[in-house]
């Protein structure tokens, strides 16, 4: 039972990440490969704030504020770039962030990572048990995903889809496209940071490898397999791929080679999705890739 709860918490965190990236890539057509960076900013900002003696609530506010400011800046810098160049630029930020985490050892503890991040206390109640943390995670991420869902259904969301489909046409109607792009990038990054705050306090240990370029690619895999632009699809895609290692264990794959098998299966799924189901496994058929 305890194991199932643990799995559910991790699954919820990654679903949050996948849904936020799905909105960015699938709805707005902004191809960022730096989502794990914002996940990491949230995690490290929370850990540093909590070690500095601040409460969890304050730490979350700090993490999200830092992410909003930095991601908005990054987005403004990358704005002039075309789609593929934007992806490469975001690659660059991902590498830069990893380097800062490793080289800034006096603050971030480098490759050793940060241990003993305390569990959050919410309204005077310490979330020590996993079940209470699960409920808290579900409530927090449920709210975040609801906000994202509302955004995609609103006028703002429709403008994002229009930017993705035909940016020049939208310029004709005098929309400030840059404003929309920066805003959605900052919002989705903030959701990723929120996931980071939960991850850091749940796992109680963070190191640069959890927020590397490989992790960003993994989150992108969750979205692609689930369905680009589909919130439901991304969440289901995340659930399926996160449960895959457990399924492999039941099939009898030895634990020593499980990581390699998982990688091969992820790869095959990505190739299959690209060739036969560009809309993803769980998205409605009429949705198309950005």
């Amino acid at each position, binding site marked *: 039972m305890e194991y199932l709860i643990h799995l559910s918490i991790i699954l919820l965190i990654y679903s949050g990440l996948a849904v936020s990236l799905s909105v960015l890539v699938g709805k707005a057509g902004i191809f960022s490969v730096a989502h794990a960076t914002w996940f990491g900013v949230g995690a490290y900002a929370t850990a540093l704030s909590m070690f500095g003696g601040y409460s969890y609530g304050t730490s979350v506010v700090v993490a999200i504020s830092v992410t909003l400011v930095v991601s908005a800046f990054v987005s403004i810098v990358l704005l002039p770039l075309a789609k593929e160049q934007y992806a490469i630029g975001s690659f660059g930020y991902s*590498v830069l962030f990893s380097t800062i985490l490793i080289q800034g050892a006096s603050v971030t503890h480098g490759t050793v990572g940060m241990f003993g991040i305390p569990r959050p206390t919410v309204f005077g109640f310490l979330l020590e048990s996993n079940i209470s943390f699960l409920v808290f995670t579900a409530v927090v991420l449920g709210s975040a995903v609801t906000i994202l869902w509302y955004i995609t259904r609103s006028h703002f969301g429709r403008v994002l889809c229009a930017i993705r489909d035909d940016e020049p046409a939208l310029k004709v109607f005098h929309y400030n496209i840059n404003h929309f792009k920066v805003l959605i990038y900052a919002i989705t990054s903030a959701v990723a940071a929120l996931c980071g705050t939960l991850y850091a306090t749940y796992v109680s240990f963070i190191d640069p490898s959890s927020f590397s370029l490989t992790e960003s690619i993994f989150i992108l895999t969750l979205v692609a397999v689930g369905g680009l632009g589909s919130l439901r699809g991304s969440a289901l895609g995340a659930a399926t791929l996160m449960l895959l290692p457990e399924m492999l264990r039941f099939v009898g794959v030895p634990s020593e080679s499980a990581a390699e098998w998982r990688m091969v299966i992820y790869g095959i799924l990505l190739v299959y999705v690209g060739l036969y189901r560009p809309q993803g496994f769980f998205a409605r058929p009429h949705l198309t890739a950005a």
Partner: protein
Amino acid sequence: MEALSTATVQIVWTIATYTVLSIGFNYLWSINRFFDIGYAAQILVGAYSFYAFERAGASLPVAACGALGISVICALILERFVYVRLRAQYASPLMSLIVSVGVLAVVQGVVSMLFTTQSQTLVVAEHYFRFSTVSVSYSQILTIILGCIVYMCARYVSTHTSFGTQVRAVQDNEQLARTSGVGIARVRSLSVMCAAVCATVAGIGVGLNTSINPAFSMSLLLDAVVISMIFGLGNIPRAIYGAMLFSCIEVASVWVVGPGWKDATTFSVLIMLLLYRSAKT
């Protein structure tokens, strides 16, 4: 003085490796028009095939030829069963990129299963030559010579043969090239083969000088992308200038800021370069 000589040798070796890497990437870019992460898979296949042959007791030329053969065959299989289908569906660059990530993941997984995730060293790197104050390894000399040969061949092919013209034609306007009688499938297959050869040479070169592991090709690919973007994607003859600039930045960053900041410095330069280019257009 000795440090300067060593740094010069290192720069020349880096230029040779990056030139080959960048030429291969440009061949793929010319025919695919997206950032093909599958190129990193070709580097892996080439380097690990070489390692497998070497471990089986093959001599250096035999291992290199075997690795080239396997790499080319794998590249052609990928082209036939993955990329041809992608193009037939008019897949977006984003979807193509996602598929290429999948290809790399599969190859990385298989390589990890066969050779473990530990770093492996290729034994030829143990011989050293001493010229005055400079010590140069056999593998460095080999990589530099191979880099020169590959660059000269690629430059000649690109500027003096009909294949080079056809590659440029496909890159500029595929429809027009088809109408003009260019055999698109043949040009693509040949380009893929050239890219596989470059990937293998670069992979072996890096492997001989440092070590190889299933993740090493990704950073090489990113370097190739940066170099190719410096003087324009698909521009094979200018690949060497990009490699020169990139190598100098890389070595300077190691000296000035420290080896840990190498990737961050080069990517910062890339971002600035991209912004400069987009501001110009």
